[in-house]
Each structure stands twice: as C-alpha cells, then as structure tokens.
C-alpha cells in the first residue's frame, strides 16, 4: 500500500467533499469559526479511522446482506464515545456543534468509506485510508471556516488562537453577516467547488500539452 498516493487521493483527487460530493451537511452547517471546523474535522477523522479499522477486521465475519446495519451499529458506537468525550472535556465545542455530533453517524463519508474501502481491504490500508480521508475532510472544513469567519466577522482563528478570542483583522461591524448565515455556506462551498474544478481542469490541460 502506498501511503503517498492515498494521501494525495484523500486531499485532492478523491477528496470526500470536493470530488465525491458527500458529507455536505456538516461542511456547511458548522463552519462558522475555526474552532468548530477543526473540532468537527478531528472528530470525524478519529471516528472514521476507528470504524475503518474495526470494519476491516470484521469484514470476513459480517454477512453481505446485513452489512449496512452492521456498519451503522459500529459507527454509532464510536460516535457515542466521541460525543460523550467531547461533552466531558470540551463543553464549549459540544454546545456549538450541538446535534451535528450525533449526526456524524449518518455522515455519508464514514458509511461510504466503509462500503467502498474498508469492507474490501486489509487493516493497515484501511487505517491509512481513514486518516487520509479524514485529513481531506478536515482541510475542507478549515478552509470553509477561515473564509467564512474572515468575511463574516473579520477575525481569524476564533476559539483557537489568542486565548479563544482570535485575531481581529478588521472591525466586526464591517463584516458581512450574510456569509455566516446559511446562504453564505452554500455560496462559499460553491466557490470552493468551482476553484477545485478549475484547478483540476487546468492541470489536466497542462498534462495534455506536455504530451
């Protein structure tokens, strides 16, 4: 198994959000500041890796007919653990992510990777796959939160840097509140998608020209 290609797939060529178009709900709903983005990204990364490991270990035991139900139970178990841990140690994160932590259970990324990868591959490859896809997802969340936080409230790193206050780049009064509202989520993600589509096409054209 090649770690480098898997990492590249997770971040760019097979990025869960930008290329496979899954896991959209949380991507748009919680990316209002950097703290939420990183918190959600890392929770998904941990759950994805753990469930990938367990599912690839059990892939010969789970019968094909009931595999979806089995996946869901395994994932739900890990989600409950992470949910309880966040409630205990990061109550702020728990209150700002709210219902979206238990909803990681139905995040298509995790079920999708179980179905497409870890049910068919060995433990080591599945672990690496979980980590890489998780990193790809986290990067998208971080990009979204940085853009929305900057345009919406003029700050950077809210909840993470500078004792939780973040750095104020321009006064919050001048921020476009619209970007933090649902409308801004759709538009920001659309622009991000367009950017990736443009970059991929450009890279492809360059390759063609080189040939």
């Amino acid at each position: 198994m090649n770690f480098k290609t898997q990492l590249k797939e997770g971040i760019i060529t097979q990025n869960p959000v930008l290329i496979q178009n899954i896991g959209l709900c949380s991507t748009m709903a919680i990316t209002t500041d950097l703290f939420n983005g990183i918190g959600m990204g890392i929770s998904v990364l941990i759950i994805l890796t753990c469930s990938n490991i367990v599912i690839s270990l059990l892939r010969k035991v789970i019968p094909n007919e009931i595999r979806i139900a089995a996946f869901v139970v395994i994932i739900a178990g890990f989600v409950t653990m992470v949910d309880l841990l966040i409630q205990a140690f990061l109550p702020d994160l728990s209150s700002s992510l709210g219902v979206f932590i238990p909803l990681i259970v139905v995040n298509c990324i995790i079920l999708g990777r179980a179905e497409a990868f870890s049910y068919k591959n060995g433990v080591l490859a599945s672990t690496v796959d979980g980590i890489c896809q998780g990193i790809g997802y986290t990067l998208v969340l971080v990009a979204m939160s940085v853009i929305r936080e900057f345009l919406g409230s003029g700050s950077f790193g809210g909840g993470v840097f500078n004792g939780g206050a973040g750095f104020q780049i321009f006064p919050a009064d001048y921020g476009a509140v619209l970007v933090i509202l649902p409308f801004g989520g759709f538009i920001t993600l659309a622009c991000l998608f367009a950017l990736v589509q443009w970059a991929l096409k450009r890279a492809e054209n360059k390759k063609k020209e080189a040939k």
Partner: protein
Amino acid sequence: MDLTSIFSISLGAILVQNFIFSQFLGLCPFMGVSTKMDTAVGMGIAVTFVMGVASAVCYGVDLLLVHFDLAYMQTVAYILVIASLVQFIEMFMKKTMRSLYEALGIYLPLITTNCAVLGVALLNTQNGYNFIESVVYGVTGGLGFMLAIVLFASVRERLDATAECPKAFEGFPIALMSAGLIALAFMGFSGLDVFK
C-alpha cells in the same frame, strides 16, 4: 395541548426553520435526487412518511431508554430504529406500491442515512416535545423537505437545460449557488416567528 403550539411548530418546520435551507439537514439526498422533478416528488413523499413514523417510534424508544437509565445509548438506538423502519417500508412498498418502489430505486434504502430523519428524532428529544408535537414536527419537517426539493428540482431542470454559466461553475457548483439563492429567499420567512 393547544392548537397554537402545533401551528407554530408546523410553520417553523416548513418555512422558518426549514430543514434544508436553515438547518442544513438532509443535504446529500437534496443535492443527489433533485435533478428530475418526478423522483424529487417521490423522494419528498417517502422522506415525509419516514420522518413522521420515525418521530413517533423514537418517542416511544426514548421513554424506554429514560426509564432504564440508558439515555446515553440514544444515538445507537435511534439509528437502529430508523434503519429497520426503512427496511420495513422498503419491503412493504415492494409488495403493495410497485411503481413508486421502482421509481425511488436506490434512494429508498439511502433514506436511512438522510440526516434529516435522525436529526428530527434528536431534535424532538432535545426540544422536549410530547408525542403529538413530535409527530407534527416530523411530518411538517418532511413537508418542508419536500417543498425544498421540489422547488430546487424545478430550478435545476432549467439550469441544466438552458442556462449559460462560467466553465468552472458548470454542474455541481452552480447548483449549490442556486440553492444558496433559494436559502436567501427563505431567510425572508424568519420574521414569521409570531407565536414564540
């Protein structure tokens, strides 16, 4: 139990707190199934039904969990209930409503992973709704989902057929962009919160 609270819950679930446009729940099927009008309608009906039934059943399950002091098992229990419910509906439809079953195809089992369904069950518990309120919230939430997906499908049919747009935005990004514009329009409903 008064009618005002039911009315305000319904109004909230359909317009003000629309599951798609203001709570971001159920976006994957919303983006995936909205390319054609008839599948969008079928999906809307199926989701409304599942959300209504799931709210009712999960209310009972929650009572049991609280009684046995197992509230931390909520997520696991709910998702199991929803998964078996969807499986059951699938078998039922296969026997009795063949045409709708075939029209929905792969999307029927996928309702299990629709976050709107699990979301409505969790929100019912979080908001402390009683049985009737839960069912009303589930059904009207589903109707809100249906409204959103039907509106969006009609926009998208034209978008794919006729609209010109920059190369980089073709396909998925421009669809998201138009969903964003509908969300902007839905923000206009936020003033309707008259009963709270």
